[in-house]
């Protein structure tokens, strides 16, 4: 007899209640900086969850997602820039400081770039894919370094305040709840996708692409769709992140940022939908506290990453498995 009890999502509910109370805690502790840190955690968490669609569920280690993050951000910043100088982009696209218009624009631009780069990179797998995505990331990086019109290496400051349906991101608490809503939506949406037929095919491709092809499914469409979807989620996070900071620069899309997104996803556990959000929180809080202690924060941080790769590569969400293996290992091999 199969039981149809639905597991109540206890952990996500607790997590979101805790995250929702962050602004209250911040005002109680009189620490407004806390809201900014947690806004960053939420947005990078959304990006890491988006990346994980292709990384954890598709099995493709992409090192170009910082490019999508930065691309989304640059679209928002460039549109605001053109609105301020009242000169249309390419001579016919009017600038805008309304995120309700520029985020969809960021999505379209990123999706187009993801389709083009995906068609080339998705034909390969494994190490080739890693190296090609790394090269694509550098390509976008150097493109924005070379675009002197938009600040080049120094980056682009948003001087025209942007707004989301009239909400100014400088209103930190309200903006925080917008980001929280986005994180919740992403978590929910990705859970639905991963457990749908599409998600099943995607996970099948990760395990054995040959078998998927053998049962008569052409994998490329699925891989490309997942890649573009993952890029678009990351771009939305990037757009909101730049709107919140009021500044974007090529440093936001450096290849090391792509590596950091992968690390966030892995810390939390790439076999889960929400793990990367928790991973982003751990990553940013660790970075914050270690860099508070010493300016040489990269040294202990790098060692932690090496140890994680060596001993706990499936992330915290799967920690019980290595522990269980350790305790239940047969004594005589």
């Amino acid at each position: 007899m199969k039981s149809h009890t639905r597991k109540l999502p206890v952990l996500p509910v607790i997590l979101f209640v805790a995250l929702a109370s962050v602004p209250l805690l911040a005002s109680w502790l009189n620490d407004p900086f806390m809201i900014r840190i947690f806004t960053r955690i939420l947005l990078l968490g959304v990006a890491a969850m988006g990346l994980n669609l292709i990384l954890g569920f598709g099995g493709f280690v992409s090192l170009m997602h910082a490019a999508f993050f930065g691309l989304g951000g640059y679209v928002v910043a460039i549109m605001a820039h053109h609105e301020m100088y009242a000169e249309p982009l390419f001579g016919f696209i009017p600038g805008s400081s309304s995120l309700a218009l520029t985020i969809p624009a960021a999505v379209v631009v990123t999706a187009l770039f993801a389709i083009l780069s995906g068609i080339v990179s998705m034909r390969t797998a494994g190490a080739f894919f890693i190296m090609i995505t790394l090269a694509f990331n550098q390509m976008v990086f150097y493109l924005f370094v070379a675009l002197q019109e938009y600040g080049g290496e120094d980056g682009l400051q948003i001087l025209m305040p942007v707004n989301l349906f009239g909400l100014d991101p400088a209103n930190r608490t309200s903006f925080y709840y917008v980001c929280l809503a986005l994180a919740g939506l992403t978590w929910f949406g990705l859970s639905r996708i991963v457990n749908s037929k599409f998600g099943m095919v995607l996970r099948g491709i990760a395990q054995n692409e040959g078998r998927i092809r053998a049962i008569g499914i052409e994998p490329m469409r699925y891989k490309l769709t997942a890649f573009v979807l993952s890029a678009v989620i990351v771009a939305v996070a990037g757009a909101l992140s730049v709107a919140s900071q009021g500044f974007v620069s090529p440093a936001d899309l450096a290849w090391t940022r792509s590596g950091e997104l992968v690390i966030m996803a892995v810390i939390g556990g790439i076999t889960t939908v929400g793990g990367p959000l928790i991973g982003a929180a751990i990553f940013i809080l660790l970075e914050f506290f270690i860099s508070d202690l010493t300016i040489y924060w990269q040294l202990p941080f790098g060692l932690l990453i090496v140890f994680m790769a060596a001993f706990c590569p499936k992330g915290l969400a799967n920690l019980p498995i290595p522990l269980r293996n350790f305790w239940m290992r047969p004594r005589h091999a």
Partner: protein
Amino acid sequence: MTFALFVEQLLNGVQFGTMLFLMSAGLTLVFGIMNLINLTHGSLYMVGAYFAVTVLSFIPNFAVAVVLAIPLTAVFGILLDKLVLKYFYARSHLEQVLATFGLIFVFNDTVRLLWGPASLPMPLPPSLDGSIELFPGLIYPTFRLVVLACGLLVAGCLYLLITKTRAGMWVRAGANDRAMATALGVNVPYVFTAVFAVGAALAGFAGMMTAPITAVQVGMGEPILILALVVTVLGGIGSVRGAFIAALMIGIVDTFGRVLLPDAIGSICIYILMVVILAVRPAGLFPARG
């Protein structure tokens, strides 16, 4: 574009290409034989340059400093392999990327701790610091010619080593089919160590030879690491010949792209070239595994 300018840019391009080849030769072999994605290859480039600068501060002779720093970098590479990377040969690519990415953090901060955050100059001896008039209208820096000559010399030696010697045959056999090479009696762990040491020495040498032109600084190897990865992918993983051709191609196209094309396109033309080549040949120009 005058003829003199053309020759000057061509020399610059070939010189850049040979330095890229020194970086990618080790990368492509380490990947081809050990199946290891080694993002710390850029750190070896940086460490080599720091070793050379340090030796130079004790023994003020450029050639001696370079000759001493090369084995130091090779030893550093062997230690890195034996202490950490060895354990990741059989792991997934994701775990290799994570571990070597973490190591980049570690090396960058360790270098910052030991040598300070400021970039260090690497002074040239007066004999190398000047320029030579190659023909009327073209005055070219002497040191760049030396770099070019050294790069081509090393590339030539490496080519002979890999195509004409028994050790080179083991390496090619390992890159082509590791299991079969082991079965035929090649001592694969020994080959691993040798390849890693040579790869580290080559990367370090490239760092030392570039240092007087740029400067010695933390993270100097990262942009060149990614270009070396592009070269590796284009040349075909595991193929030294492919890496040489791809490195020269990237060096020349990048140099001329920056001179002839508008900024935004010139700085990304090598990536566009990569995309076009991979669209036609997804496994690179000369894949080692047939």
